[in-house]
């Protein structure tokens, strides 16, 4: 029987990495949305999103004279625009002469703490008046490049070459490297594009006096993936106003004005289009009539009038060139903000009609609002697309910068001559066109510095660090989707709710953290795909026409037929069909998906209902949609379904769920709904659900194997488990994703027994001998950066090395170059490195190791400057801190059962089984009844027989059922191995030597060591630093502060009547102070020392009376009292505001 652990196969992959294919191709698919979205920025066949963006950026027209608005003389016109953006792969700067290897690879950037970026060049074109077009290729900075994208030097490399370039053998990419740190642009859930959403939201009513909470909203996406949201408000009188925002400002326009500006149409036409034959629907007709009537107040009718009106009103805020007429300006505005996903005005008009009808239907209660929290109405904002949007905006800023330079010249009366080529070049050079730094800033901080807001709801939190704490956490970063930081502030919990339509396959119902981000930070299911390329859908209109949809509704009074459903493709109205035919059209289209049209087409058929979602056939083909594979029963092929259409589909989970003529699809596997991590919890279907959530959390905090290229990592902190093992009990996905390359724990012999008392309250006991043999031994790598180049500009003044003045004791740890020996053991205060400071006359200056634990020097990296010209000024030292498990460290099984190590128990005292086996870990049986993690029991049994027979046990959830139970399956195996069917074993006490009265549940459970360790957390203080304002002890572990003894703690002491302890803790050990008080006036501020005023005879009298109250002018009432210093501070603060505190005193005795 071959090994079910695939050990040899894995070793082969490891020893002889392929140069042609990946060993674990599935792993590459996980980050695909990130890479593909970045690739689509510049990649054919779609021509590259960036080039669409460039076309969409308006040319800037600059005039060489200062012109008042609407002046007839404009002077010479300089028109500047961008024609092309080119981003190159990361190469060395041409100034570097040291090497002929010009390519920069990510590993170098990580190790040198630089940014992995490629040159951005734009083709800048300009034209003077109507002369010839000139162009110039302009360098605009270094844009950070996503690793393994089509602009990365690692693209198309396979394990062998990747290892040669110091990467992980199965490196997936998908992140940026900014100053050596790996950054990911988070996936964000946003409103589904090109779909008209009916919304009822109180905030809509706050827009003005007659505004109501009803509205329809559409997020229109341009070809370059930038979006513009249009909202139509319903006003109390029945009128409709369209809202859009421009540069973070909101504007309202009457819809009729826009409709009339779009096409030449009279009121009758608009009325007929809106009513569509429903003349008996007086709710609708009344409102349409009123809306048309109200527009009369504008006194404009024709298309031209309307467009010019728009242009006149809006040309300032859109900063439209003075050379444009009002009409041109108006048309420009219509193009820029109204339903930008559509090109033709007729289409825009049709969609406006649809929107208004939907709005009225919503108000009348004929249709329900769409839920913006449901994935049905959401899509994903991909990192690459966001990056593209940002580049677009920064490029258009570049053009504005040119305009600003010329404007400044004119304002300062400098000569401006467009015909002088030198001047133009000069202008270009002077304008700030650097976009690379802005992009790097965005990725480094996650802050969106934008003047348009990019139609997004947040300005920060767009990027996260791809922490390599362990591999599970790392891959989860790429699969997480955030709802938006806007919602984190929200008081209501509706956004966080788990909706039935969301967890059906797209977003994992289990994998979300608890606490603040709960329900907002979700993870994609492991089969969920995100569409990154738009399939070709040009043939759909003709296909639909063949199927008999009506492309143009007959108008006029004779049309009485109702119940037409609108057919839309990506927000464009293709036509209408009778509601009776809609289902069959949808069905036919679905069959066509498999060959004629793309599989990625989403066919959302919303059937007519009584007050449900507004009906229609909505086809979606664009990017950023979530889709997932299921099997189509009609042809037994894999169909991709989207989150919109899924709501109206009948998908069976298992074969037996199929209902004839109803069910159309079946799930490929029931576990497809789970994220990667949730899938890895063994037998999670046996656990109480919150425990699986906890496990997802804890898997990400486990000390495991962060990387197989630790030699080339420079993370500030890395956790590593030395003795990682492959779990005996693991799901199929474990192999599919090759997770054996990154073990996350060890198989431990676990006895569930209440043995010593040290296992109470979730504590666990570890066998001391197991510990001594290396059980759960871990290591932490910490990095220290030493940089000398603070005064770099004035020449190098510091040199690493030991000067003549260095004491010989330094040479024990440091070499002549001032750097520590590899393998040297550093204690607190030991020298970490030394340098010679020329500014102090060649003195040797030592930098100390400040950590509290002993560390070994693991690596020393010399970091040169970018050009490779200067003496080394930067050194990166990697320290290794051994962390064997100690009492107080945290461990957990894979079932949300965490515990603290409470004791290393001698092996001889541990209980032993019939065969002499002694458990590695003892946990208390009380951990189970309330938590109901039966999965852990099953794992224990499965692990035990897996270990006995040497097989890997499949722990995929939902494998067993009521007829075929896990207990039988594993119980039979145990019996075969000679064990008890239930997993119990007779055990003998290691202390008395007698057999226990009960058999003990012993098995093999995969245990994780969590990163929370006492060594990082212990805090102790007797006396120490105090806060200098209040004189109270300061807080914080790093500053050796105390732990707050707070109100509740105080209350408990009070309740116990422990007054002495209370006095001691809160007064004597805190801010005890003494001060003089005047008992007569009750003030603590008026007592003054008056040494010189009195002629005193005896020393004794002096001592007694040398302090006097300044107000009462006597020392009779002065006494010394003990008060907390904070009280004195309070009194001072109050006094400064003119509030006096009078203390009443009483004689003590």
């Amino acid at each position, binding site marked *: 029987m071959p090994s079910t652990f695939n050990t040899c196969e894995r070793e082969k992959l490891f020893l002889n990495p392929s140069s042609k294919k990946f060993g674990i191709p599935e792993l590459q698919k996980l980050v695909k949305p990130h890479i593909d979205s970045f690739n689509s920025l510049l990649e054919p066949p779609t021509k590259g999103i960036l080039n669409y963006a460039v076309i969409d950026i308006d040319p800037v027209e600059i005039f060489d004279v200062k012109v008042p608005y609407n002046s007839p003389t404009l002077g010479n016109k300089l028109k500047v625009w961008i024609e092309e953006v080119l981003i190159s792969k990361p190469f060395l700067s041409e100034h570097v002469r040291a090497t002929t290897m010009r390519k920069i690879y990510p590993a170098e950037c990580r190790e040198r703490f630089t940014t992995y970026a490629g040159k951005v060049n734009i083709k800048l074109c300009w034209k003077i008046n109507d002369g010839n077009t000139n162009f110039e290729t302009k360098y605009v900075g270094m844009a950070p490049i996503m690793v393994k994208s089509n602009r990365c030097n690692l693209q198309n490399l396979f394990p062998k070459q990747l290892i040669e370039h110091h990467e992980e053998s199965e490196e997936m990419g998908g992140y940026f490297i900014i100053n050596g740190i790996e950054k990911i642009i988070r996936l964000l859930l946003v409103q589904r594009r090109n779909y008209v959403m009916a919304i009822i939201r109180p905030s809509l009513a706050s827009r003005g006096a007659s505004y109501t909470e009803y509205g329809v909203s559409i997020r229109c996406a341009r070809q370059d993936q930038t979006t513009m949201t249009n909202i139509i408000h319903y006003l109390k009188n029945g009128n409709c106003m369209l809202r859009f925002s421009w540069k973070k400002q909101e504007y309202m326009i009457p819809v009729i004005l826009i409709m009339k500006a779009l096409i030449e149409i009279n009121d009758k036409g608009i009325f007929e289009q809106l009513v569509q034959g429903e003349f008996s629907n007086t709710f609708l007709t009344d409102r349409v009539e009123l809306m048309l009537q109200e527009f009369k107040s504008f006194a404009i009718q024709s298309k031209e009038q309307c467009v010019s009106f728009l242009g006149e009103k809006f040309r300032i805020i859109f900063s439209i060139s003075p050379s444009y007429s009002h009409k041109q300006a108006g048309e420009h505005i219509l193009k820029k903000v109204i339903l930008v996903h559509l090109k033709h005005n007729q289409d825009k008009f049709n969609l406006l009609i649809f929107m208004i009808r939907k709005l009225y239907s919503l108000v009348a209660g004929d249709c329900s609002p769409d839920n913006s929290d449901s994935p049905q109405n959401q899509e994903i904002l991909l990192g690459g697309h966001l990056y593209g949007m940002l580049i677009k905006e920064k490029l258009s800023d570049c053009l504005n910068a040119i305009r600003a330079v010329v404007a400044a010249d004119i304002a300062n009366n400098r000569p401006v001559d467009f015909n002088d080529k030198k001047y133009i070049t000069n202008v270009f050079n002077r304008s700030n066109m650097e976009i690379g730094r802005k992009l790097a800033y965005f990725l480094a901080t996650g802050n969106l510095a934008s003047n348009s807001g990019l139609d997004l709801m947040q300005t920060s939190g767009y990027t996260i660090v791809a922490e390599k704490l362990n591999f599970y956490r790392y891959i989860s970063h790429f699969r997480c989707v955030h709802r938006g930081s806007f919602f984190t502030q929200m008081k209501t919990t509706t956004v966080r709710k788990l909706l039935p339509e969301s967890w059906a396959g797209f977003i994992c119902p289990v994998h979300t953290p608890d606490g603040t981000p709960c329900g907002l930070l979700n993870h994609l299911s492991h089969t969920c795909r995100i569409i990154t390329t738009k399939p070709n859908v040009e043939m759909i209109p003709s296909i639909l026409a063949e199927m008999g949809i009506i492309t143009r509704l007959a108008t006029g009074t004779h049309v009485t037929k109702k119940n037409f459903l609108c057919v839309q493709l990506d927000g464009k109205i293709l036509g209408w069909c009778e509601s009776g035919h809609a289902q069959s059209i949808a069905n036919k289209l679905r069959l066509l998906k498999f060959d004629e049209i793309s599989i990625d087409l989403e066919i959302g058929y919303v059937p007519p209902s009584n007050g449900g979602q507004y009906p229609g056939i909505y086809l979606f083909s664009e990017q950023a949609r979530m889709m997932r594979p299921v099997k189509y029963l009609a042809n037994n092929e894999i169909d991709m379904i989207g989150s919109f259409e899924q709501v109206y589909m009948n998908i069976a989970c298992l074969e037996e769920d199929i209902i004839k003529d109803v069910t159309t699809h079946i799930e490929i596997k029931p576990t497809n709904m789970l994220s990667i991590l949730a899938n890895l919890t063994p037998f999670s279907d046996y656990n109480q659900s919150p425990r699986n959530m906890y496990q997802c959390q804890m898997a990400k905090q486990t000390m495991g194997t962060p990387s197989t290229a630790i030699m080339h990592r420079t993370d500030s902190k890395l956790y590593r488990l030395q003795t990682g093992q492959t779990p005996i009990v693991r799901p199929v996905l474990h192999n599919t994703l090759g997770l054996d390359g990154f073990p996350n724990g060890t198989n431990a012999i676990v006895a569930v027994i209440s043995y010593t008392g040290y296992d109470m309250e979730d504590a666990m006991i570890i066998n001391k001998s197991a510990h001594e043999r*290396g059980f759960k031994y871990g290591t932490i790598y910490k990095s220290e950066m030493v940089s000398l180049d603070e005064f770099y500009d004035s020449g190098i003044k510091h040199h690493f090395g030991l000067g003549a003045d260095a004491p010989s004791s330094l040479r024990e740890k440091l070499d002549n170059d001032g750097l520590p020996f590899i*393998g040297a053991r550093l204690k607190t205060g030991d020298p970490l490195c030394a340098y010679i400071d020329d500014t102090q006359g060649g003195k040797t200056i030592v930098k100390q190791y400040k950590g509290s634990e002993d560390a070994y020097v693991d690596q020393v990296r010399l970091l040169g400057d970018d050009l490779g010209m200067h003496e080394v000024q930067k050194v990166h030292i990697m320290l290794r801190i051994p962390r064997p498990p100690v009492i107080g460290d945290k461990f957990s099984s894979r079932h949300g059962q965490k515990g603290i190590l409470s004791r290393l128990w001698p092996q001889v005292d541990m209980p032993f089984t019939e065969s002499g086996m002694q458990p590695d870990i003892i946990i208390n049986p009380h951990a189970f009844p309330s938590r109901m993690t039966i999965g852990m029991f099953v794992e224990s049994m499965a692990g035990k027989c897996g270990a006995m027979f040497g097989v890997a046990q499949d722990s995929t959830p939902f494998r067993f059922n009521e007829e075929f139970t896990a207990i039988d399956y594993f119980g039979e195996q145990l019996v075969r191995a000679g064990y008890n*069917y239930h997993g119990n074993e007779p055990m003998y006490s290691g202390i008395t030597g007698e*057999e226990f009265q*009960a058999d003990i549940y012993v098995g093999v459970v995969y245990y994780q060591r969590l990163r929370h360790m006492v060594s990082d957390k212990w805090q102790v203080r007797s006396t120490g630093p105090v806060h200098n304002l209040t004189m109270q002890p300061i807080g914080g572990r790093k500053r050796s502060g105390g732990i707050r003894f707070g109100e509740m703690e105080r209350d408990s002491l009070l309740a116990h009547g422990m007054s002495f302890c209370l006095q001691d803790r809160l007064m004597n050990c805190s801010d005890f102070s003494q001060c003089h008080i005047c008992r007569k006036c009750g003030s603590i501020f008026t007592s003054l020392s008056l040494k010189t005023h009195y002629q005193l005879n005896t020393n004794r009298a002096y001592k007694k009376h040398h302090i006097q109250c300044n107000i009462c002018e006597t020392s009779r009432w002065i006494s010394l009292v003990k008060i907390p210093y904070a009280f004195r501070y309070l009194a001072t603060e109050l006094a400064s505001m003119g509030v006096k505190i009078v203390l009443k005193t009483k004689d003590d005795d």
Partner: protein
Amino acid sequence: MSKRNSKSQGNAERLEQLRTRVIIEKEGVESISSSEFPYHSSNHHQDIDYIKEFIKKFSVKIIRKEQYDMEFDLIGVDAAIANALRRIMIAEVPTMAIEKVYIYNNTSIVQDEVLAHRLGLIPIKADPDRFYFKQANESPTDMNTIVFKIEHECTFNPKAREDETDPQKLYIGHNLLSESLTWIPKGDQEEQYAGCPIRPVHNDILIAQMRPGQKIKIEAHCEKGIGKDHAKWSPVATASYRLMPEIILKKEITGDLADKFAACFTKGVVEVEDSYVEGQFIKCAKVVNPRIDMVSREVLRHKEFEDIVQLTRIRDHFIFNVESTGIMDSEKIFLDSVHILQAKCKRLLAALDHKLREQERDREQMDIY
């Protein structure tokens, strides 16, 4: 205690069983503790000489004896004694193990401290009796320290084919094994151990995997120690015991049930024989070797055997299994443990005597006053 048992058995028989047997029930184990000691309420008789009784009952039977693995029965002792021996074998029989590692060069990927730890766990074939414990303030001598060294380097194999991928052929010395630990005799160790040179027990323990250019140069010092301090000094892989199982059949089990019955036990415990009953051969279950049963209680899970079978274990019959790591013979480990226990008892007796004398002195002094 279940009523069923008391009904079916005579009282005396039942009492005898409680006195000498551990009774295994479906849920739980009964009568686990012994009452076989003086001054226990039920069995104390002035006129019994317990020592004689003990000598009469006590025996050691060696069942299987290999050099490094042995099984023997210890009969007629209390669990406390058996357990004491087990504990001493695991934790208190001294051996030699690497305790200090001086690393001169280590460019392998195994970190220094991990390498040292791995070396410590390698069993060293050396007779611990011929060494002293090294005290903390003592300097190493040939009487308390054994020195090993490793000088190892991995290189490319010049004879390897160009496209070779098997590291075994591609490199020389890419596996650092325990055989590379070379003993450096100090003092008169060379002559003393001429007959049995000191070496690691196993030559093929993998210490580190290496690649060309990596070097390891270390000196390792072995010291004498006990398993209590660190598991590396434990001479046994495991030393443990179990109680002798006993399977009592109250009724004959015949037919297909016999096969099922046999399957409930470890293979070889119950055999199915054909016996001639009433003119025909029928299958009949017979307990042949209860000793090897793992007492999984599988038989109690089946309803059909509920009243037919009783599982017990003999409370003072310990089946010991001592598996040596290879440093010492199993037999010696056990004998050493007995000696250590003896020494401990002597120490305790001496301490008791001392205490008694002290008390006596105190009393005398009291009398004087």
